[in-house]
């Protein structure tokens, strides 16, 4: 088991595996997302109360879910960086932080667009919205701190500590709607109960969530490959790879 773990740490090995995985991730992800979005926006029934405006859920929920998952993945990578000093874990954190920031922004933005007609306001400082905004700032913080320290090793450690400290925000986002009074509604989907939504609505939602996760996987691989090429530019295998592609 440890052998696989250490192999994972090798940038060269990862580079090869990622190249094989990427087309699958991209095309399966794109088709799932397209199916979910088209079904959700075009064919799913209206909501009895909100009419058509609820359809923003097909973008809002996947973005918000993935924004939090990305942070959790970054936290695991941060732990690996601190304990095992694995370079690839830091590469992952650097590669996905901007993606997470964009997803968080998308969740906040679509939420605001939906909130205006539904609640009557774009923004309210309730626990869910505020903790999500903190998540956005955490992503910005990770990006800024990483860019501010030029030494690769100390930069990796500093970023990992920040990511791990920020991870307390994730359960706060998740349970904010249960622990406190908020304007944001509680979760429609719970692991233990049936969703309080008909299948014609949650099946397309599930498709777009899965699709977005796969596309994220593709994007993470792509950005990690780029980061590896930049960092390992002096090694022999990268030089050989570049030469082989160049010819």
């Amino acid at each position, binding site marked *: 088991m440890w052998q696989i773990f250490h192999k994972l740490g090798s940038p060269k090995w990862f580079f090869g595996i990622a190249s094989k995985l990427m087309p699958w991730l991209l095309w399966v992800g794109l088709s799932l997302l397209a199916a979910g979005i088209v079904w959700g926006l075009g064919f799913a*029934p*209206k*909501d*009895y*109360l*909100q009419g058509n405006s*609820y359809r923003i*859920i097909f973008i809002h929920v996947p973005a918000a879910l993935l924004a939090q998952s990305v942070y959790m993945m970054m936290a695991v990578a941060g*732990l690996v960086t*601190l*304990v*095992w000093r694995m370079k690839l874990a830091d590469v992952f954190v650097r590669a996905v932080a901007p993606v997470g920031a964009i997803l968080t922004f998308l969740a906040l933005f679509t939420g605001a667009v939906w909130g205006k*007609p*539904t*609640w*009557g*306001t774009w923004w*309210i*400082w*309730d*626990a869910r919205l505020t903790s999500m905004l903190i998540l956005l700032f955490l992503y910005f913080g990770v990006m800024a701190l990483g860019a501010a320290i030029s030494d690769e090793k100390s930069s990796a450690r500093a970023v990992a*500590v920040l990511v*791990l*400290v920020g*991870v*307390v925000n994730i359960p*706060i986002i998740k349970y904010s709607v249960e*622990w*406190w*009074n*908020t*304007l944001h*509604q*509680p*979760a*429609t989907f719970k692991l233990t109960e049936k969703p*309080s*939504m*008909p299948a*014609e*609505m949650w099946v397309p939602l599930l498709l777009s969530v899965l699709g977005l996760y796969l596309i994220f996987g593709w994007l993470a691989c792509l950005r990690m490959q780029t980061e590896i090429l930049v960092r390992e530019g002096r090694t022999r295998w990268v030089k050989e790879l570049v030469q082989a592609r160049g010819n």
Partner: protein
Amino acid sequence: MHPIRKKRLTIVLFLLAGVSVAVGLTTYALRQNINLFYDPSQIAEGEAPVDVRIRAGGMVEEGSVRRDPESLRVEFKVTDFTSSVLMEYTGILPDLFAEGQGVVAMGRLDGQGRFVADQVLAKHDENYMSPEVNEALEKAAGKRAAMSGAESESAVSY
């Protein structure tokens, strides 16, 4: 596991536990500030300050909405099914405002336990339904209500 890695792992876990405890205690201490609104029970128990801008929220009680025919003034009761508070608001209500739906209002409590709102927001719940299903449900509920209404009417003697 290598002893150095074990040591690092312990340090990281301590860091995580420490941060969680600190944030947990802080949010617990600030819970009243983090709560977006007071619910009617808290207002009934006098927990909410009088004549200070606060938010109050709950369900609009069925059959409690009274509109002033001359102006945009509207009065309704907001309940959490244990207590209720009378709200007064002048202005345009959000589309989702309806009896049996949640609202969060911003305003002041006057001395008589009446809440004078200057902003009313609709609170959506986590339930989604297609209009057809809702219609069917309402029809069924209407039938049941009509039946029980007929029974109680016949039981009442004038």
